């Protein structure tokens, strides 16, 4: 079953050839980094960046959920591990990656 599913995935690794845009390859470099995604209802998810699709839906691995315990800010945070999650693009409000200050400009700067 698993193997079958794997075969269904178009071979994407090979697409890092000349046809791949600079922006796509820069996102590719962000894979497996710690990513912090905020969503509409105020929660944050911190996990390792696993996958993104054309629509901007993100999958994070080994994710920890952070949530405020009160509506009024600032409020204490509560956290729990929730593993592999899919964050649909419409509910995403922010997205940050963990990187050194030097990297920050070269990696993320948009020309």
């Amino acid at each position: 079953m698993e193997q079958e599913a794997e075969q269904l995935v178009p071979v994407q690794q090979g697409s890092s050839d000349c046809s791949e845009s600079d922006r796509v390859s820069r996102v590719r470099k962000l894979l497996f980094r710690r990513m912090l995604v905020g969503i509409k209802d105020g929660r944050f998810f911190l996990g390792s960046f696993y996958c993104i699709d054309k629509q901007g839906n993100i999958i994070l691995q080994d994710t920890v959920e952070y949530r405020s315990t009160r509506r009024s800010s600032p409020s204490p945070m509560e956290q729990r591990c929730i593993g592999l999650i899919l964050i649909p693009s419409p509910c995403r409000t922010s997205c940050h990656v963990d990187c050194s200050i030097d990297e920050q400009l070269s990696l993320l700067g948009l020309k």
Partner: protein
Amino acid sequence: MAALDRTDEATTTVQSRPRIPSGDNSVWADASPLLHAACQDLQEGDLIHGDNFNLFAAMSALEIMDPKMDSGMASTYYSLDEAIENGAAPVPISTDKTTDVRCIIDIMDHLLACEATWHKGHSLAQTVYSCLYLLQPERTSSHALLHSYCQVIRATCKAVLSVVSDSRTHEEEDLFIMAYGLPLSRDGNERCTAMLNAVEETICRQLRACKASSSKRRVSEDIEPLQNNPDLEEGYCKALLCRLRFRKHFYHLLMSMKRPQGAGLELAREHIASCISEIDHIRKSADFLRANAPEMSEQNITTTASGCQPIGFDASLNSRLSAPTPPRSIKIFCWEKALEYFVKLLHDLDIICSYSLNPSLEAALLFVVKFQKSQPDLVSRAHLQLLLVQNGKLFGRYPMFSMISRAAGLPEVAENHDIQKNEFMVQLEQMVINLLKIICTNAAWQRRKLGKMLQDWRVTFVQLELAFKKEFGNTSNNENISFKIYQHILVWVEEQTYWIAFRFLIVGFELELYSVHDYCMVYWYIYIVLINLAEKKHLRMAMSSGAGKKKSKKKRDSLKDAGVNYQISAPVKFLQSQIYLAEGLAMMLAALRNEGRIVPPQSPFSTEHEIFIQQFELLLKACLPDGISYLTYKESTANANFSTLVMCDYFKEAQKIAKELKSSFPNDPDMIAELKRIEQVAERNNIALNVICRLGTPDPSVKISFTLCHHPFFATAIVKRS
């Protein structure tokens, strides 16, 4: 404008972000613009992913903000503290004492409905503990009534939970015992009941005082009334009293049932009777409560007697505690149904408590089988199991080996014989314990486990047989007690194995695992298993009465010719009537098929052979009995036809034996009822058989169907002309 909103959001994000630290010497860099741009460059269906990507695994990701998957979705309140600060669960509920009492009764009723829902297999966190008052035990301490009620609820939940988790009867209802992070009772039992008693006492006095003042006999003692409206005082006092007393007796009942060796069963029965009568009072209080409910609350809330929305409940606050399971939507029982549930639970517990704790394995097994017929729920089954097996002894009183040797018909001297230290005997004891536990579980799990355990029983039988041969060779030293023990126990193990096989087959009817087109093979197999069971039972009984001929290979015919060799006992005769019935049904079904009156559907999935394997794989693997296969089944049913079938008189024989047997069980109403059912099924099938025969050639306008309405597993044929 949209862009402006985005920046606003971004700034708030930045403000709250620093509390989630980035790595050493690194920063959180905003990746949104880059991701947005990269997505535009992607083709439809493209993904950016690493080497270890696995679409199958990715499919199992929890989707955030999907209400069916995301248990962390913020609901009305972000946390319990916030809910409490916002007045979701005030203490007291109202400064007006009448309203306060009214609301507390609603809370009590809703909690009862939640408790019934929990017992039916939902998570504790989303049912009983959706009550915010239960979540912070100290908060209610200023309010004696509410506090004592919450305390007894917590203690009750803890007691029920421990029984169910100790007995491990909950596999299919696995959410039941999840209580992670919930405050279950930490106080001692005494404190919980002492406080409840004190509150009950106060309300009793208030009730007395109000009755006295209304009859104007004398000026009432200086007692502060329960609430402000003198007209409602009596009604509210009574409504509260029956609810409190129910809780008190229910808690005591659980505690009494927990006492070792069934020592508290008699006391438990008294509490059960009190609980049932309090439930009656609770029911009767509904009219009063509904009449005095505030006007505006015509929302038809069904979980309370008054029909008002209870205050202080929020199931969503706890939904995160049910992780790792996804949040489930739970429909809380309505109040009426909750009361019905408790009445059934109490009746089931009463059946358990009234069991005589007869030191007999056979009686215990039959008791459980009978108990299961009323389809008892998880909580009562768990109690039964804990009563049956305690410290490896039957009812915690009788050592298993002595129970086995008694069941095998051995004299008392055998009960303390050193042979019980033999490893296979120890193994056998363990298997009997497992059997007792398994037959207390729900039907689906029970059947699965029974099927699996058949092989263990078979293997143990073979091991015991080898040990027996090793010790005694071929000599038949009749005087030796160990020889006798081995011999008796071997026969008993075989008998028990076929009993399990029979149980396995008939539980399949309860679970509706057989289609009508499988009936032929199922009844044929039941017939085979019953013959072997009857043979072993007969041998065992003959051995213990001393009249039996050892190792006699009596097959069906000798068993049927009752009384030719020696007296056949009533239990074996009872099996005979079932054998005839099963054989008759198998042959009638085979004849219907052979003569084309019932045409099995041509399934594209499984052939008849494959279905045979699927249905009986576990029996075949355990060689129950030896030499049985699909071929034997085909051979014995291939020639069945109606002209010979009538001659065989299977149904008439079954009916005759059942009729005769009734006088053998004068003090056993259940057995009499079972015999009546068998008689009835046999009679009806005999009539159907004759009708079909008289019709002669297959007639398409005649429809033949089978129903289980007269017996749980012996079908009745129905012939109808359409």
